[in-house]
């Protein structure tokens, strides 16, 4: 068991706190090209995800685990389709709590 390299739950606004570190987020896919996917974060900011082999086909919601490259870009290591129905508001609140009051349970 190891907890030395967690991936923090982030929304668009929290991404900038973790530049260079491992993060996880869920985006609503708005477009994709070869090697990158563009989407809307759970707090309505645009996020660009780069990296090889995103799943195909993509569902509406996509979870990305990877390294935060900038305040709006992630280099993906793992992609997971989260389906076409997902409560983004709940996820957004989870991101805030997991980096706030309950941070010690997560990172």
């Amino acid at each position, binding site marked *: *068991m190891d907890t030395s390299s967690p991936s923090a739950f982030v929304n668009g606004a929290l991404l900038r706190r973790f530049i260079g570190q491992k993060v996880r987020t869920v985006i609503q896919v708005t477009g994709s090209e070869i090697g990158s996917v563009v989407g809307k974060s759970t707090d309505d900011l645009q996020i660009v995800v780069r990296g090889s082999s995103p799943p195909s086909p993509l569902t509406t919601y996509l979870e990305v685990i990877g390294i935060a490259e900038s305040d709006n870009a992630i280099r993906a290591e793992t992609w*997971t389709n*989260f389906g076409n129905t997902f409560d983004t508001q709940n996820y957004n609140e989870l991101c805030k*709590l997991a980096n706030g009051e309950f941070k010690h*349970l997560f990172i």
Partner: protein
Amino acid sequence: MYGGDFDGNAAFAGGGFMPSQATTQAHESSSSLKNRDVRTLLPLTLKQLSSASTTGESNFSIDGVDIKTVVIVGRISRMENRITQVDFVVDDGTGWVDCVRWCHARQETEEMEAVKLGMYVRLHGHLKIFQGKRSVNVFSVRPVTDFNEIVHHFTECMYVHMYNTKLRGGSITQDTATPRPQMPYSTMPTPAKPYQTGPSNQFPNQFNDSMHGVKQTVLNYLNQPMHIVSEAGVHCDIIARELRIPLLQVKEALEQLSNDGCIYSTLDETCFKSTANA
């Protein structure tokens, strides 16, 4: 005789390899009821699991509660099928842990066949420690199909942590006056032992007790059974009038209680209801 209480110990003691058997039987001599109380089912993050304190090979505790069965939701990041077991690693974003699922019966093998590398799963198991290394002996693995379950799991981890540290912690002082086993939070509360805090602090005769602050007084008021069953909650004006506390103070207390997760607003931001169970 059939139809009686299900006794997990009796059922499991019948056969098979149950490493915790010896310890549970040792406890049983004192009181089987007590034994049942400590059989917890705790949703935990792996960060919490790694920080759980231990006194021996399989005795762990966190937030003052003994850990028996744990619930973890995470992604399978490594997997290896062996003849009698499946070894895998689960990563929930807060950390990773080695897991083993022994497969003897066909049902167990079939359950594991549905689980693939990269999948999100919800698993139930026992935390083990061997040569200082923690791992989970898993007895149920289910693929996550609705991904809201992940959010729900972590929300529940936070709730249970708060329940066991703050709410339950608050009632310990009362227990010293009238000692009785305190039911730790479990995701399967039985109707006979609801997991709300001690009922003795919920009645109006304590309203003017100077020991309680405004917050406690307001919470006691909202914890009255008649208010717990009301769907709409209670308007802050009514609380202020009934308790003869200035509205401003009541509002401040309500806000704090709401932030603490003890109450929530119902129809609008003026009506409140306790989060305690009806």
